[in-house]
């Protein structure tokens, strides 16, 4: 019996140790994974840490990160937005058409084109929000419908053709740099900052968390829960359209098929970043790290010459592990 006893003791302390390890991993796991990945890649490829490659990663990530920021608002309320890829294409094509001489109606000022594209995105997002908030339909169904309708609108509007010959001044949005930093990265930084302030420093942000955590409690506490739910879809639409405009300006043409399946990477970034799909829990910084992680994996594996087939497997595995870590955190 005595030796048995001591054995049990050590087992207990081991279990205790594992407990803290699991907690550390779930709190900082993603950041840690990200840093480890960066270190490994910097040894594996001398090109990886070069300034132009880093800038390249950031530029590539900016599109997904923008979608993921909008998606974070939505998921924090306990919803989901599957339509971001289509809204991205719609916003991009609307802006491109107004900034292109190839499209009937002539060229308007690039800022007007930008505003119109963003307005288009907000409109589609608002339609999502209306059905979900006002008529209490499941977000999954409504945004799945919009995924299809948004793409359809885009093809109808552009007659299925790309919109080329876009005003040079408009292309600056995607191709310009400031102090060597590409505009898309600067726009992302700006949007991230504004979103961070909204989520963590304003009443609106608190309400978003409260609605996702417990809609009924939020309602009884005097929060206009329908307005909050409606508005997060409009925000997501805005972010998606902005990403579409940047993509258009970078590729110098509005492409109606742009952004297909982009919603998956956006949701992945949010989930990897530790935001709970049931709402109420999560951080914007986590989302940014999630998006960067996805970007770095793609870039690093490209540099190492790993086939894109394997990349998909690895990305999927990371999503599952991230959610597993999240479930540890919940149990704790």
């Amino acid at each position, binding site marked *: 019996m005595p030796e048995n006893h001591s054995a049990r003791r050590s087992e207990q302390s081991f279990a205790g140790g594992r407990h803290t390890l699991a907690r550390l991993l779930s709190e900082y796991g993603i950041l840690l994974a990200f840093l480890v990945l960066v270190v490994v890649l910097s040894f594996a490829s001398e090109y990886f840490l070069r300034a132009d490659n880093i800038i390249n990663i950031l530029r590539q990530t900016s599109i997904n990160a923008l979608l993921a920021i909008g998606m974070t608002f939505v998921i924090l309320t306990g919803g989901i937005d599957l339509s971001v890829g289509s809204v991205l294409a719609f916003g991009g094509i609307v802006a491109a058409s107004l900034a292109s001489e190839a499209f009937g109606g002539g060229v308007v000022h690039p800022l007007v084109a930008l505003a119109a594209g963003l307005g288009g995105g907000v409109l589609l997002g608002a339609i999502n929000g209306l059905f979900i908030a006002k008529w209490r339909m499941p977000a999954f169904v409504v945004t799945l419908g919009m995924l299809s309708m948004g793409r359809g609108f885009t093809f109808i509007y552009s007659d299925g053709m790309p919109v080329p010959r876009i005003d040079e001044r408009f292309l600056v949005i995607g191709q310009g740099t400031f102090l060597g930093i590409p505009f898309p990265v600067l726009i992302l930084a700006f949007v991230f900052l504004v979103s961070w302030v909204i989520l963590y*420093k304003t*009443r609106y942000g*608190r309400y978003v968390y*409260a609605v996702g*955590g*417990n809609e009924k*409690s939020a309602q*009884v506490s005097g929060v206009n829960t329908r307005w909050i739910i409606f508005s997060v879809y409009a925000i997501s639409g805005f972010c998606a359209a902005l990403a579409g405009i940047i993509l258009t300006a970078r590729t110098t043409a509005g492409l109606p098929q742009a952004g297909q399946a982009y919603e998956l990477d956006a949701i992945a970034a949010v989930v990897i970043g530790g935001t*709970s799909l049931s709402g109420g829990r999560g951080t914007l910084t986590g989302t940014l790290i999630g998006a960067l992680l996805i970007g770095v994996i793609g870039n690093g594996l490209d540099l190492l010459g790993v086939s894109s087939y394997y990349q998909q497997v690895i990305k999927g595995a990371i999503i599952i592990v991230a959610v597993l870590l999240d479930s540890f955190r919940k149990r704790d």
Partner: protein
Amino acid sequence: MSAPNRSDSAAPLLEIRDLTKRFPGVLALDAVNLCLERGSVHAICGENGAGKSTLMNLLMGIDSRDRGEILIDGRPVQFVNPKQALAAGISIIEQELNPVPEMTVAENMFLGRESTRFGLWVDARAAQEKARQILASLGIELNPRLKMKELSLAQIQLVEIGKALSYDSEILIMDEPTSAIAEKDADRLLDLVKSLRDQGKGILYVSHRMNEIFRVADTITVFRDGRCVSTQLASETNRPEVVSLMIGRKLEDEYTKNNRIQPEVALSVRGLSRGDDFHDISLEVHAGEIYGIFGLMGSGRSEFFDALFGVEPADEGEICLFGDRCEHRRPKDAMANGMALVTEDRKKSGLVLSSSVRDNVALPNLRQLSCGPLILEGREKDAVQRITDRFRLKTPSLRQIVSRLSGGNQQKVVLAKWLLRSPRILLLDEPTRGIDIGAKGEIYSFMSEYANEGHAILLISSELPEIIAMSDRILVFSNGRAVGECSQAEARQEELLRLASLSVHEGEVLHA
């Protein structure tokens, strides 16, 4: 476990020796000893955090112990999951009911061990028949084909008990079994507990409610700070002694009440109706008054509060606050008029469990705590600190996630968030449900003090002693109608209960 064995065996049904469990930072159970005999009810009392839940988790194999032994019929056991505990004859009826709402009564009772035909498909009829038998043996008439979502809380509770019995368990653990149900149903439940005891089962009865404990328990064990501070025969102790053992000091008086009613009418309601929920409710509450509303579950009392507060507005009737007619279309309107509502179920509608103490307390007050859209965090922190100090909230920090607080402290968070607004009229729906005696006392003295400052309080409670002790006047609800009103002096438990159980028809006669 044959009959002769049972009488020969000197070993008790369940014995716990030196049981110890440590969590990071707390010694949750400290060398606890306990003995449960066959055919007896052993009550476990203690405040929240005294170690009752830990004890139950260790017994059911949910947590692993650090030291000590658990013996069933004299044989040491060590469970690693609840399934093993169930197989060994221990089942538990938990305080938080976890029904699957879309499944039927029978499906819920046999969840995870459905009997099958030829090992293939589920034999639904056999399960329904068995469920009917078990429920009937408990004296419950309930169609086992009903879906759980169609049942009342009390019925769900009874199904859970049926489920626990369906395991043929010798040892039953009941965790606060009456916390969610009305007095009348509670009576039936206590009778049930006694009959189970008479069948030779051993019952561990965990409860805060002294009334019940002294009605059913043979033995009473008091836990405090993870230690077992006393085990006595119920016949050899009394209520004040147990309470003072629980809280570790003498409790002068459970209820505090010294508010003074003022002539001014704070709230007047005339002819308020909404659908089938409640009909033609009229009342007047004065400043400084505590006005009780008593009714059974489903009598429309909580729905009435929802209508007053604009959560679901009334169809007809009028609400006047301090003489001004008010239209409450949503909670925001009621809040602007100085009303606050502490809802019946703090987890469902009182708190955002995944958020911090600060975020919860600030939620209904953010407009006052911000400048434009921006929250003034310094002012917010001061305000939250001030109000939580007033309620002596025990929390490691204001950043603590509220789901990790005890029930009493969670309730204090709900009170704090509404009191920060200094409402003129406070609606309290079951404000002391499921919290320990110490915290209850604090809430009573707060109510008395707050009313005495000239505010009006409306109190819904299913606990008769509480509502009689705290209310100046009591209105009785039955089937959505107000069937009678009496003053504190006139109030008798039996009479209130009789009124509350009246059918609509009788109620109308009484009114006429």
